[in-house]
């Protein structure tokens, strides 16, 4: 198991839990919850934040938040 922060661009994973405490409600409301599939799209030019795709849309969040999200790798999409 890894955290979302450790996924490379183009890698996909499914949320399995939260590293510590309760997930921020803002993230939950944006649809990030246990069982949600996430693909890391890219890093921002200066390395933070990251861009992810979930539920058919794009979201950006900081690595500090990504670190809290525990992920099981699903593989990666290559073009």
């Amino acid at each position: 198991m890894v955290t979302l922060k450790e996924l490379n661009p183009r890698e996909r994973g499914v949320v399995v839990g939260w590293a510590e405490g309760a997930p921020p409600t803002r993230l939950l409301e944006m649809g990030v919850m246990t069982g949600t599939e996430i693909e890391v799209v890219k890093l921002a030019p200066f390395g933070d934040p990251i861009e992810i795709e979930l539920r058919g849309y794009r979201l950006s969040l900081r690595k500090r938040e990504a670190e809290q999200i525990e992920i099981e790798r699903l593989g990666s999409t290559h073009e």
Partner: protein
Amino acid sequence: MSEPAQVLEGAATQTPQRQRLVALAGNPNVGKTTVFNRLTRLHHKVGNYPGVTVERKSGFVADCDGVPIEIVDVPGTYSLNPRSLDEEVAYRVLIGAIEGSRPPDLVVCLVDASNLERNLYLASQVLDLGRPTVIALNMVDAADGAGIEVDANMLSEELGVPVVPLVASRGDGIEALRAAISGPLPIPVRRRWQLDAAVEREVNDLARRLEHDLPALSAQQRFSDALRALTQRGADFFEVHHTPGFWTQVRAVRAQLENEGVSSEQAEVVGRYDWITPLAARVSRRVSQPGPTASDKIDRLLTHRVAGPILFFVILALVFQSVFTWAAPFMDAIDNATVAAGDWLGASLPEGPVRDLLVDGVVAGVGSVVIFLPQILILFFFLGLLEDTGYMARAAFIMDRIMKRVGLSGRSVVPLVSGFACAIPGIMAARTIENQRDRLVTIMVTPLMTCSARLPVYALLIAAFIPAGHAFGFLSYQGLTLLALYLLGVVFAVAAAWLLKRFVVQGNQSVFVMELPPYRMPRLRDVVWRMLERGRLFLRRAGTIIFAAAVVLWFLATYPQVEPSVAIETRHAELSELQASASDARVREEIAAQLAQIEDERAGYALSQSAMGKMGRFLEPAITPLGYDWKIGVALVASLAAREVAVGALGTIYSVQDADETSMSLIDRMRADVDPDTGRPTWTPLVAASLMVFFVFACQCLATVAVVKRETDSWRWALFLFGYMSALAWGAAFVTYQGGRLLGLT
């Protein structure tokens, strides 16, 4: 079923034929503005909700019989759980808890077909409010492009309410939506999603208690209030609505659930998505496997590791270049028009205090407000384009890492950089910052960015006191000075942001979670409309304060009026006589020039004896440590309204006609000015440096203070801004002057 009864009662006490009220809700970036503008055909008005800075936009649409229906635009949010100001306002609008308003008769919830799951989250909250609801399914074309087909009929069946498909950008479906809005009201639906069983039990329990405490609420309202109270930690906002006993029970239930290992906070969100996710899958069909979309291709360039930041700066540079160059002719025209209006008024009114008040107070005051308009309009045109194309979110995405260092987020970049043109549109642009704490800090430091109004002051002082030579043969000292002044502002803005965030502005640590919407073609009409809206807002709200202040400053500069100086008047009389008797046109012209100079001296003398002149003298002890004499003090007082006034005020004091910033005579006079007590020159390069540093920091701009008051809805923050910037200006000028003297500079 008390709700319909309430509505009927309300109708009876109001006009017999009550106007229908429709609320337009939806996520950000779903084209709500376009739908609103299309429906109302731009017949709308903009204001603020009472007591908050969230904008209230409402307009009218005619139903089939031509009877107007009022549409109110609900702030775009992802949720109705009130954590942010926008969300709180959105929720209160929808339940009719806004002061002086009633619940909407119908809610139109805009849903993005290409982003169905997350949009249905808000829609499910809207449906739970128990009001008649229509779903407007927008951007079905974008969904087509992504290879997804959404079955609107099936969605309508699943949700239990009418669904109208739209392509708002093309205007498709708008007529159908208009018909739905004016037709018979759909029946509200019951909740179709399930809570975690343990939480559900407790919520029902709490709802029963509310039935006892507040029998006026409908069953649906009771359930959603109980749910909200239990699941939202920040729900204290609702505390006023319920009895203390209810809250004791809420806390007990929260603790009990926590012991059982059930997170009540997650229960609501998870329950909704557990219903939405399979529902969205049932109503949408993937018709083709999409490759990278056009948006992806654009994004690959615009957020590229190397090209992204470069393009960001290029785009910003182009925007601000345009703001400067495009605004300049309009600003000149406004300036000329102000002068012409003043001249015309001056010529057509009899001499006296009324004329002077109208010409120098009112007309000049109006001019000082309107002069900002070109920059504001042009900047907001570009900001609107950047926002509507989706680039603004990318700019924040690119710059967030750097802004995080000082405790701000990427969202602060654009307001801060706008401050280089003018702090006012920058402060207004801070509205896009979701986190209230970040927004406030951004507003507080934006005026430290060097705006264009400081340039005339810098230009005058640099031309007068900075040598024209070059360092290393190519770096001009004058240019370097200007650069240093800009950098000084930036460095202190960053430092002030860090300090304010740490010690002054309270609030929640923000979770930076930002949607990156697909790039879209902006609709020019929406952009232009928003630009005009901003301009009107500025004129109406800030304009009144600036105008009043300009009139007050005029009074200070004019009164008390003293007996004219005998020496000046004698010379004036002599010259007038000479001019009348002179026969040679050349001689007459020469005398006229001298007369003009004496008249300026007369004005300078009057100013020095006025309340403002006295204030300059009064200020002298406070500004002597900065190296300034009373004349500079007068310039500082006069430029409280606007920085560039300092140049004109110095011109008046030094009695030079047409004291524009390149006027050599003003510069010569300043250089030649000598302190009568010590015999030393009033102005030295060190004094000039101290004054320039003062202007880097001082909040010499009433328009800024007025806009901060408006945007924060509090005089406290407006006065705090003025106070901290003035203190910083004094301190920095003190360090500059006294430090310079210690180093042996003069």
